């Protein structure tokens, strides 16, 4: 209560101030703040050169200063645009909101950098006058930004010739890849954090301008082109890394995790079954892959071609999925979550005990299966680096490409199932199970299908995973990993492919970048989950229907308001 009271009081204060300051003055002040911020990036901010980016040099923006420079530059362009005749075309709703967001970005980056200099170099005494000047400029910018006139939500409804729109799609995806590679290349967490803040600010500003929704509209208009281009851009990733294996290795793991998460999204997002033991299916697939890999530690001598292994892995996980699903799917909701959690642990414990002393020797128990050889598939040795298009790629690129193919398959399964009679039935079950059954749907069979299908896809990912990580143990498939998968799906957005992808990338890549926080990883995940559930329960990239399910009250309120407005007319 008191929190919202303070917010309204603040808002009232801002509104009163806005009423007193004419728009032109506010705009001039904001422009001044932006220009000063821009200029401040050419100053030295720190006396010590040890701070990441070396901010001791005059006339040369380095480290996080670059982000301030870019944000301020964009803000200047937008402010000039607002008074130019182009305004009606490019910023129909006004650019005030966007500038405000950019100002906040500038301020956050500047303040964080100044503070970090103080903390890391032993006291604020290490901040040179340029740093304080930058902070002051950013403060002017923020305050002036608050005084800018409110803009209306902008709607871009431009329809350009197809080839121009194709170019835009290619450009946006190319930029996304460039930003991604750029982000990976940043070694220091401080600068990486500033990058994230700046990126978030730029994206929010673009969204305020109406650019984001327009681009996503263009993307939906040319769905096939967008999806193909997205895969091409993803396939271009290894070419940005050359023969360096580090990030390729990480991205292979991200890819396997993401593929599994999309498979889980069929179970959780489409059929609405909360499965907390899903990682067990990845484990089954991985053990099938490892046992049939011809590894020295494998208890099975047979080493079939990989294509056969994938099929065997898929079939076995499907059978396991049906075996686990048949008893568990008789319960619903929370009970289902608990029972699947139990079955997930049963898998791990069983594998631990199939070691020859407490059970038959199949899996080497807790020792797992080490030394899984690299794949040889389609005549390609996955352990060697290859030259593609005249470029020597690290050997993890092989796994990356294979993983990409599997992911494409899983996405195809996801979207085709979703848009079929079966997807409709799953949705109906999610909406009202009793009514769905009364409408003639064999709910148990449909749920079992979702469960087994999800299991099969995870199993296929597992067979690749065994080779890619070359050593597997039962502990890689414990409950925590299932929880991470569910978290990725829930954070990113239930029922969407892009949501599961985003969730996986965030959950796996950020800890790589913030090694600093490694010990507090779980705490930070927990806090993030709580925040997302509080402010955006449908996930970051939401399925339209899910959104409706989570915002029933607001939507009906909105409808009521519309109806009243219509009645008044």
């Amino acid at each position, binding site marked *: 209560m008191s929190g919202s009271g303070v917010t309204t009081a603040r808002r009232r204060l801002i509104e009163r101030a806005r009423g007193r300051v004419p728009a032109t003055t506010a705009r001039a002040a904001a422009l001044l703040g932006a220009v000063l911020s821009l200029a401040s990036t050419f100053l030295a901010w720190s006396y010590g050169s040890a701070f990441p980016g070396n901010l001791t040099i005059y006339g040369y923006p380095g480290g996080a200063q670059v982000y301030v420079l870019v944000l301020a530059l964009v803000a200047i362009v937008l402010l000039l645009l607002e008074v130019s005749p182009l305004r009606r075309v490019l910023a129909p709703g006004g650019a005030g909101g966007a500038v405000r967001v950019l100002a906040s970005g500038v301020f956050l980056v500047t303040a964080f950098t100044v503070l970090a200099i103080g903390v890391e170099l032993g006291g604020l005494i290490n901040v040179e006058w340029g740093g304080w000047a930058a902070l002051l400029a950013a403060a002017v910018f923020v305050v002036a930004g608050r005084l800018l006139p409110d803009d209306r939500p902008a709607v871009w409804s431009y329809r350009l010739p197809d080839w121009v729109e194709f170019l835009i799609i290619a450009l946006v995806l190319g930029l996304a890849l460039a930003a991604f590679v750029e982000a990976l290349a940043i070694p220091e967490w401080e600068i990486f954090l500033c990058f994230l803040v700046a990126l978030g600010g730029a994206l929010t500003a673009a969204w305020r301008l109406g650019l984001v929704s327009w681009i996503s509209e263009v993307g939906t208009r040319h769905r096939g082109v967008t999806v193909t281009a997205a895969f091409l851009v993803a396939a271009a990733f290894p070419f940005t890394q050359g023969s360096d294996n580090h990030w390729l290795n990480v991205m292979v793991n991200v890819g396997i995790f993401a593929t599994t998460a999309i498979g889980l999204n069929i179970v959780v997002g489409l059929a609405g079954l909360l499965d907390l033991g899903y990682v067990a299916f990845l484990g089954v697939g991985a053990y099938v892959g490892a046992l049939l890999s011809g590894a020295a530690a494998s208890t099975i001598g047979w080493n079939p071609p990989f294509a056969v292994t994938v099929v065997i892995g898929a079939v076995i996980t499907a059978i396991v999925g049906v075996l686990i699903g048949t008893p568990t799917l008789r319960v619903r909701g929370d009970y289902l979550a608990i029972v699947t959690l139990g079955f997930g642990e049963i898998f791990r414990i069983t594998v631990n005990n199939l070691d020859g002393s407490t059970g038959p020797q199949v899996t080497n128990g807790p020792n797992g299966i080490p030394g899984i050889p690299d794949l040889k598939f389609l005549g390609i040795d996955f352990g060697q680096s290859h030259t593609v298009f005249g470029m020597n790629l690290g050997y993890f690129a092989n796994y990356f490409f294979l993983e990409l193919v599997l992911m494409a398959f899983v996405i195809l399964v996801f979207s*085709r*199932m979703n848009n079929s*009679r079966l*997807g409709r039935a799953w*949705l109906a079950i999610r*909406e009202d199970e009793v009514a*769905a*059954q*009364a409408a003639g749907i064999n709910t148990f069979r449909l749920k079992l299908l979702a469960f087994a299908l999800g299991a099969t896809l995870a199993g296929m990912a597992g067979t690749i995973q065994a080779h890619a990580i070359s050593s597997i143990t039962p502990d890689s498939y414990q409950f925590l990993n299932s929880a991470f998968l569910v978290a990725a799906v829930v954070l990113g957005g239930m029922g969407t492919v892009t949501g599961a992808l985003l969730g996986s990338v965030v959950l796996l890549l950020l800890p790589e970048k913030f090694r600093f926080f490694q010990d507090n990883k779980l705490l930070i995940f927990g806090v993030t989950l709580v925040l997302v559930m509080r402010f955006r329960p449908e996930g970051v990239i939401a399925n339209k229907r899910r959104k409706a399910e989570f915002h*029933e009250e607001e939507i009906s309120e909105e409808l009521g308001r519309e109806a009243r407005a219509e009645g008044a007319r």
Partner: protein
Amino acid sequence: MTATVGDTPHKPVLRVSGVTMRFGGLTAVDGVDFTVGEQEIVGLIGPNGAGKTTFFNCLTGMYVPTAGQVIYRGTPLSGRPDLVTKAGVARTFQNIRLFPNMTVVENVKVGRHCRTTVGALSALVRGPKYRREERETEAQARELLDFVGLADAADDLARNLPYGDQRRLEIARALASDPGLLLLDEPTAGMNPLETAQTKDLVFKIRDRGLAVVVIEHDMRFIFTLCDRVAVLVQGRKLIEGSPAQVQHDERVIAAYIGTPAGSEQQA
């Protein structure tokens, strides 16, 4: 008309014999016999708590009756709602149960589920069979929406429909499974007189499509002008069954609804 208990003028579609439903010590439905003939509209009335909806649930497999048998066109119905629907008995619910976040036409398509056969593999490959079936489903769903008068709202979310339209959509979804018998649980509850009249016309139209209909309703004017036959359920037992006129004037029915009069004055 000299219809008596168990007497049906037409060939029976549904034959219920001795259905009893007990919940612990409570007998909600007690040995009810009930028959519905081809293209017949039968009303089921009774005071609140008489066991009408429980009886419906026994017919549609939501409950497995403690005793008795339900036979639809010669085959006994098993105790699973989806199998009952597949056999040809569709129903609506007393409190509307649509899929609120699906569009109107999608709601009807879900009703087609048990008459379509495309499996996971076919949905993945999208072969000619898949495309033909999707086309047919779409066409039939649109036709049904046209039939109940919701064609214009086909692509709206079901939740956004006005109350009366939601009821009609639920009927369209039930009709989508090509039933031979339709069970309507209070189809006019909460409707205004105009909507009630429209519903009555709709039920007649459904009968003309060749369906038999059983209606639970509290609106007596609706029941007595709609039905060929009316059965009265009181405390789980069938009190009387006969033509609307017979039931309307039966003292026991009046007593069950209003209570026994203190004096001996009687009203129609």
